């Protein structure tokens, strides 16, 4: 199920403005890759190119190739909507649908697309996804209650369950814990470590220690100045980046001299 992602010379534009410049890196299946870097360096922009979400903004486009198991997501006959069905995303602020119950939230990927799901299958999917997201025990008695009535950490796990219910190849997480308290953060980090056994995960994080805790490989991005494009500075095993980085800029960032 998990897929291999290759970015080849990817540059991201908003209209004429180049936001990210020439990124090339490979992400292996069943690994956790962290994108780190100071604010505005383009890491959120880049992660959104992996499921073509940045195109929601009018005028945004991409140069270069993004290959998933060899298939270019930006090929001429590829529908962005299809891409998004195969790549799941979890956002910085939990966003369960307030008009839907917990059960319907998990099934949202099917229901919103008018996909027919047999009731018994649906129950299985809900249970499996919530269990995988470590939320089943807490909500199994109130599946019909609205999705908005949970705590922040629970809502985020619900969003994760929703994302994995459609069995994507890849899971993208854009600062998933920055709006949560430390205990919920820990719960989600543990979850990520479990999920990587089945999915390829890419996570953007502001929190270097988090990257150090949960990722296998880390990509460090930086920006020369305001209005300049973000660039990939270094991409390596997490242990190497944190203990023994190659570039000086990486070391400066890790040790807190800027950012």
């Amino acid at each position, binding site marked *: 199920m998990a897929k291999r992602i290759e970015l080849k010379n990817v540059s991201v534009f908003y209209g004429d403005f180049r936001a990210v410049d020439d990124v090339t890196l490979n992400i292996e299946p069943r690994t956790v890759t962290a994108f780190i870097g100071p604010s505005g360096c383009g890491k959120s922009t880049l992660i959104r190119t992996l499921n073509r979400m940045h195109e929601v903004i009018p005028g945004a486009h991409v140069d270069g190739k993004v290959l998933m198991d060899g298939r270019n997501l930006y090929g001429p006959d590829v529908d962005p909507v299809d891409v998004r069905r195969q790549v799941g995303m979890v956002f910085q602020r*939990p966003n*369960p649908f307030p008009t839907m119950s917990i059960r319907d939230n998990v099934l*949202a990927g099917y229901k919103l697309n008018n996909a027919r799901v047999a009731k018994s299958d649906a129950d299985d999917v809900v249970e499996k996804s919530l269990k995988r997201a470590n939320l089943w025990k807490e909500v199994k008695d109130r599946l019909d209650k609205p999705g908005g009535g949970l705590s922040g950490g629970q809502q985020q796990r619900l*969003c994760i369950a929703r994302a994995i219910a459609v069995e994507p190849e890849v899971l993208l997480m854009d600062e998933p814990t920055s709006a949560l308290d430390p205990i919920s953060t820990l719960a989600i980090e543990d979850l990520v470590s479990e999920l990587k056994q089945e999915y390829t995960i890419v996570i953007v994080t502001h929190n270097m220690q988090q990257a150090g805790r949960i990722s296998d490989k880390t990509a460090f991005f930086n920006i020369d100045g305001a209005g300049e494009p973000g660039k990939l500075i270094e991409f390596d095993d997490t242990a190497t980046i944190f203990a023994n980085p190659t570039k000086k800029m990486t070391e400066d960032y890790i040790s807190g001299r800027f950012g």
Partner: protein
Amino acid sequence: MARTSIRLNRWFLPLLALASCGISSIAVTIPVTPTSAPFNFLGAIALGAVIYAILSFLITLIAQGPRVAKDRMMTTLVLVAFAIAVVPLVSLISTVVTLGLARFDREFLTSSMRNVVGQGGGALHAIIGTLEITSIAAMISIPIGLLTAIYLVEYGRGRLARAVTALVDVMTGIPSIVAGLFAFAVFALFFGPGIRMGFAGAVALSVLMIPVVVRSSEEMLRIVPSELREASYALGVPKWLTVLKVVLPTAVAGLVTGIMISIARVIGETAPLLIVAGFTQSMNYNPFNERMMTLPVFVYFSYSSQGTDTQAYLDRAWAGALTLIVIVMVLNLGARLVSRIARPHTSR
């Protein structure tokens, strides 16, 4: 700043207000004591307010200095402004209720004016006419208004969207009588100048209703957080399904409220209906055929064309006014209830 100011007791000002009213009550009664004129309530209050304003200003001036006195005067003026707004409201509602109750009976609500001269008769034909015409107007305006709002919020970019939004603004400013003239002009073109038709009235009302629906729906749709749309796109849901199944259900309470308020606004419109729907004394269920009576026109007509026994006509006019106000208030309160109950529960 050498003078220290005397703190006035908390109860001083309210007592002063009462005293002023007492003085003014005496003042308005004495000149007319020989006659048995009714107590000039309004005059007493108005005079009392003036006395209070002057006295409070002077006393504050002496006790606390000019700056505080000026502040006191402005506070009084602001309160008076509010009171002046409330007085007509109270007068209006109490007049409508007291004078309208005289004929607000079963006969009024269940019979028309057919063959009625003088006493008796009712407004059933007008009530039915109002319901029919307003429903047709709603059936035209709600889809167009809602879809246009969706266009402006979710899809519109560039010149067309800017033109549409500017024109919706222009439409909000069309006087109701001009909308009536427009409907007349359109139907006269096809049917000749003598045409009067319930449906034409509905068209005129739609011209007035559409911009209200567009503006309020637009606001409600913009309030839906963009993160919900993003979550839906990230699940691979195409845009039109996102709008239909995520945005609209989230905004539905506000949309319904806005629609109810727009209906409340047009249901009392008289001028356009006077022009194109005309007036009649009998029931007419067919909006495409001949004149149709509506409640606001009924009120106007009952007043302006009084036959023998003017009191009966006047009573019917007020009863019609009461019915109209009841309907409008029910719609307004209903809209508030809907918005309070059906609001989606977002995270705490």
